[in-house]
Structure formats: C-alpha cells, structure tokens
C-alpha cells in the first residue's frame, strides 16, 4: 500500500482485509539486523488444555501433564521478575475450600491466586456451617451463589472434588482428597524432577513410606509413569500392599534394594494421626527399617535426589541432616509449587498453554 496515493474507500477496505504475509521460518535462521530471531530453546510444542477441572492425574494424558509443566515453566520465569503479579485471573473469584486442615498447600494456592490477580475467599471447616451440619453440597452451592469461578478443595474424603464437580458449575481444583490424589503436588514433583534431571522418561523413582494413606504417592505414580518413569513403592507390607502393582508400581519391602538404583527418592511422611496402632509397631522400628539415614544414603547413586512433600518428621522418615543436605530439593519443591499452581489456575481458566504467557 502506497501511503502517498489516495484510494477510494472500497479499494482501501479490500487491501486491509488481506492477511499479513506469513514469514517463511523454514531454512537457516540468521540473527541479523535489529530483530534477532533466534529460535526459543527448547521449542514449545503446540499444546492445548481443554479441561474445566483438575480432579486427578489418573485421567490426564501425558500431553496434558506436559502442558501444565511447560506452562509452569513460563510462570516460574514470571516469579523471578521484580513484579511477580500478572492479570490472568483479574475479576475472577477463587474459593479456597479447605475442609481438611492444610498449611503449605493452602498458602501456596493463596499466593498463586494473588499473583494471578484473583479475588480470594478463604474457607476452613472449623469456622463454617459444616460444623452446624450443613452438607458439603449446600456449603459449596452457597459459595457458588457468590459467583465463585473456581473452587480449590482440600477434603479428607476421597472423591469429594469429583462430587463437587458434578453438583456445581464452578471449576474444581483438587488440592488433596483423602487417600486418593493430590494432583498439584504430583505436578510440582514432576516439574522439579524434570527441571533437575532434564527428563522423566527412564528415571527410577522410589517413593518410600506410608503409601497406603498417601494421595501424593498415587498422584505421583500416575504422573511419573505416564511420562515414562519407573516407579517403586517401598515401605512396610501393611502400608504398601501388593494391589499397587495393578496400578503400575513396583512394590518392594526391602529399602536397600528400593533405593540402590533410584534417581529420585521421594519420602512420605508417616501419618501417625491417620493410623491405628495396627499398621506397624512403633515409629522407632519404622525409622530403623525404613528411615533414610546417612548409611543408606551412601549406598545410593551419587546424584540421587531427595524429595519430600512435607511436612517432614525429622528423625522419623528422614535423618535431620539429610533433609538439609545438598541432594535435598525439598524447598525447591515448595517454590515450584507456586508456578505449578499458577499454571493450573491459568489453564482451567481457559488458558491454552505456555505460548500465551509473556516471559
């Protein structure tokens, strides 16, 4: 279009409707001139997320998991900027419905929501009508009547998020349901492992401890096996039943063997508050048989990393000094949790993937 020549409106319209030329990006790239078109490393695959809820990892595809991880990587970059807040959820309302007590997950979600500029309602069972006999359905419908767009739910009953997803219109994010799943924990674990090891496929990952009651173990198993890792569950036979083999885990009760070839050792907290006295004799015996100590650590691969979803019981499942050693990535997991939860909220809000986030 020649700017100097005057055209009639009809011609102008036709020219404007013509699509802009598509640059030819094939062939070798040259970084000349003002604009340096070096390809992004690694290239972002075309991704999409079409789910309204995040209820579990079991129903996700490997591609969907990777979409979350790549989106989280973009949000992690956002979190390293001076201004850490983005407007992605401005005008949206998120309810943090924590029916079961939680500290780290609740705080992590809250901060993630704040960084996405959402309005937040925090709700705990102790200070609510649930104590007066109101059902979860009624409580949640009342929150929805306040036009809540998202409900982040933590509940001691397995399947509670699935139940809410059936009876509400809001998007539901599972922040841990009973012994079922803890999807965002698995995503942040997977994110951390991929960041540290550069891959998931082919890694040996050992999850050690109270697997029976652990929602983290189940979600980790799904996420990691879908991405090609080999997952071993280890712990006392009462806490690691053989049924887990049918979900794709390798089950062993020999801790030395379980950690020998592990690239990642993920320790689970012994949830003594959930257990009766019938599952193992004492914490002391647990520690001697299954606790991660210096001797055992010395017989692992030198680059094996130690993870823990927290809260840790120093001196029970893990020696205090190991929790703080350089091979421990426990606190990085916490940091990555923010980026992962931002990514999840962003995606269930209709975001398609990392390509939409300006780093």
């Amino acid at each position, binding site marked *: 279009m020649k700017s100097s020549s005057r055209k009639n409106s009809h011609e102008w319209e036709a020219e404007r409707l013509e699509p802009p030329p598509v640059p030819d990006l094939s062939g070798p790239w040259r970084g000349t001139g003002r604009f340096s078109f070096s390809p992004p490393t690694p290239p972002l695959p075309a991704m999409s997320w079409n789910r309204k809820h995040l209820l579990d990892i079991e129903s996700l595809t490997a591609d969907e998991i990777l979409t979350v991880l790549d989106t989280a990587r973009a949000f992690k970059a956002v979190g390293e900027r001076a201004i850490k807040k983005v407007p992605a959820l401005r005008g949206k309302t998120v309810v943090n419905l924590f029916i079961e007590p939680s500290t780290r997950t609740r705080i992590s979600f809250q901060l993630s929501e704040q960084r996405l500029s959402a309005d937040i309602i925090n709700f705990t069972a102790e200070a609510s009508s649930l104590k007066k006999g109101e059902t979860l359905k009624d409580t949640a419908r009342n929150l929805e009547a306040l036009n809540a767009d998202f409900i982040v739910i933590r509940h001691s009953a397995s399947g509670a998020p699935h139940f809410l997803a059936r009876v509400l219109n809001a998007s539901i994010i599972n922040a841990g349901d009973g012994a*079922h799943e803890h999807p965002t924990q698995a995503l942040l674990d997977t994110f951390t492992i991929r960041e540290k090891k550069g891959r998931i496929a082919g890694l040996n990952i050992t999850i050690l401890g109270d697997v*029976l009651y652990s929602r983290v173990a189940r979600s980790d198993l799904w996420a990691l096996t879908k991405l090609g890792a080999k997952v071993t569950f280890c712990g006392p036979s009462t806490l690691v039943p053989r049924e887990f083999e*049918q979900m794709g885990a390798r089950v062993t009760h020999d801790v030395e063997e379980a950690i020998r070839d592990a690239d990642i050792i993920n320790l689970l907290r012994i949830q003594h508050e959930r257990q009766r006295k019938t599952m193992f004799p004492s914490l002391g015996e647990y520690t001697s048989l299954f606790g991660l100590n210096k001797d055992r650590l010395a017989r692992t691969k030198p680059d094996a990393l130690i993870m823990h979803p927290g809260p840790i019981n120093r001196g029970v499942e893990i020696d205090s000094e190991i929790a703080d050693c350089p091979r421990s990535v426990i606190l990085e997991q916490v940091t990555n949790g923010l980026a992962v939860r931002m990514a999840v909220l962003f995606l269930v809000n209709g975001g398609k993937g990392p390509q939409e986030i300006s780093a």
Partner: protein
Amino acid sequence: MKSLLLTGGRVIDPANRFDAVADVLVTDGKIAAVGPGLAGKPPAGAEVLDVSGKVVCAGLIDAHVHLREPGQTAKETIASGTAAAARGGFTSVVCMPNTSPAIDNPGTVALIHDIALEQGAVNVFITGAITKGIAGEELAPIGSLRKAGVVAITDDGHCVQNNELMRRAMEYAHMFDLPVLDHCQDYSLVTEGVMHEGRWSTMLGLRGWPAAGEEMMVARNILLAETTGARVHCQHLSSAGSVQLLRAARQRGVPITGEACPHHFTLTDAAVAGSDKFWAADGKGVFGFDAGGELPSWPAYDTNFKMNPPVRSARDREAILEAVADGTLEIIGSDHAPHCSYEKEVEFDYAPFGITGLETELALALMQLVHSGRMSLPDLVARFTIGPARLLRLPKGTLSVGADADITVFDPNREWTYDCSAGASKSRNSPFHGWRLKGKAVATIVGGRKVWSETAA
C-alpha cells in the same frame, strides 16, 4: 364368590414341580384349580386375564427388605415400600428390624402388622431383633417377639460381634424353631471400610471392606449352627470365600442357608470407579450389555454404588452366580435399602450404605441367571418362592389348590429401561437407573386381588 381366571400362561410352581402351559383359577382369594382347559368354562362373573406368553408363578417373596417404618418414613413407608414390591412382582416381603425404634419389642411388631394390614399392597412378614436396640449387647425378648408374630430374628445392618451372645441367641431361638438371620461382618476386620478391599479401593483411596470380614462371620455361624442345631441363615453373601464355606457346611448337613442379592451378582467393585472403568474391566459379566449399543453411565464415587456388604471382584460375582445356580444359595433377596437423595448426595465416605432393589430385582435375576443360561426358569422361581418360604416357614410360595392366591405374572423377555424416578419407592438410590433390563412383572396378585398390573399403572 369372586373369581379370577388366568388363561394360557406358562405356569411355574416349583413347590409342586409343575411347569406347563395351563390356566389358574382363583376363587375367594385361594387357588381353586390349576390345569389345562379351564379357560373354556369360566365361572359366572369371573374376571378373565389372558396371560398367554407370560409366566404365571407362585407369588414371589423378597426375604430381605427395609421398609423404614416406623421412624424413617422420609426414606420409605410400609405403603410405598410394598407398592414398590408389587411393581417388582413381589407378593410378600420380609422386613428388617432396624427401624426407629428397632423391632425389639412386641409393640413395634403389632404396629407394623397393623399398618401393613391397612396400607400394605403386599404381605408383610416381620423379623425381630436378636439384641435389644440392635446394640449387640443383650438378648431382645425373643419369645415375646415370636408370640407377636416375627418369622425370624436378625440384627441386620449390624452384626452380633460377641460369639457367646450369638450362640445363646441361636440356642434360645431354636427352642421356638425360629431361624436366626445374620448380616455377616466382623467389625474389627472391616473397621471403617466403605467398599470392597482390592485393586479399586487402592486406586480410589477409599477404605477397604475385606472379604475376610464377611467370611470370618460365615465361618462363625457355621460353627455355631453346628453347635446349637439352630437354623441359621447368612444374609446377602458377597464373597467367593463365603460361598465356599457355606457349600462345604451344607454338604455335611449343617442347618445353614445363604442369600444372594442382585447387585452382588451383577456389579463389581470397579463400578465405584465409574461406568467407564466398570464396563471396560467387568462389563462382560453383565448379560445383555456386550453386544454394543449405549451403555449406562455414572461417575466415579457415585454413592448409589455404596452398599454393605459391598460389591466385590468379578471372581466373587462369578462365585455368587454359581452358588445361586447350584442351590448353595437358596434365596434371592434385594436388601432393598431406601435412603433420601439428600442423604446420598454427600461425600462417599459419609453416605449411608444401601440401595433400593425391589423394582429391578426380578429383571436382574432373570438376566444374570436365566437369560445367561446358568439356570432354568423354574429353578430361579424356586429361589424367590420355596427358598424363603421353607426357611421362614411361610404359608406362601406355592400354587397348590387351597393355598393363598398370591400370584406373580411376568414377561421374562420384556425389554424395558429402569427409571428410578418413575417407581413406587419414596427413594431413588438405585445404581441401575437408566439400565436396559430384560424381564418384567406385568401383574401382581395378592390373596386373589390384583394389587398391581402394568395396564392399571
């Protein structure tokens, strides 16, 4: 003299080993005649029902229902529960004593008896509690309950944990020839279990209800039946191990019987993980759903799949089917357990156990046992008639001349889709909503009176 003539049906009366196309004449509430050629000479003023192509059998008995009255009438009443029974083809039901108050005293028996006479669509037989308040601690007044008319004692819904107490209950009831029915559940093994312990409970993170928790009590009951000589009946058996124990005990002559529920021989624990998982894993074991077409669908953690005892593995389902077919389990009962929708619309852990069953029971039994080729139609009818009648000494379950004219007419081949909101029960907690079923009652006759028929509905 009021007469009813049913013509041209296939008459099945296991009590008399009768299975032939015949006519049935009912006069003054009693069976007056059964045989061919009655159609030609109906008595004056007789109502004639052409039931050709249908099965005419002794009225079906459901030995295990919860009518919820008195005290829980939001879930069900004697009127609504018996109406559901009539629609399902049942002419008699045996109601369980876990009402509020429990049926642990003659007054409650009398109350139910009176309401049933006045409002019940079908015959109601009453069971009394084994222990006071179904608390498992001290014996209920079993002799007085017997005098008031109970047909058995049971703490159903609960299980007497104290073995000495159970032994004495059996000894005492034996004095009256009163059978002792038991809901077999060892509390210390089952703890807080909400579904079958296995692969799916592990995956779903739900507390397991191990099969051994039932088998432990089946074994206990076998030993105590042997010790006391009392007639003992294990209700709603769900596991392969239970069936194995029972079969061996019966072979050596122990006076023990067992009961199967349609959900245990149709569903498996995979159903709790949702319809996709169920049809993929265990759908092959359901008659009529393997030929493609649209499958019924439900979500994971659907509380309409929560019952006690729970639905178990495909292997257990197979064992229950086998046991009904070979007669190890002589009785089919629904364990009809209505609950209000608001009670079921909660977290899986918090939902009450139990599902409705009266209106789907006959169809599921026909599909899983007869249409699938496992047993003959007369044998199945026996499980619903002489099986429970013998155990409970009911003057029912036969088309003998002079017997009460309780008759069920059903079409074993009728295909229909169950809609839980279209039934007579006050509750809707059925896992079979939307299922395409095969086999349906078309008329239910109690004491010569047509209490339900498809055309009248």
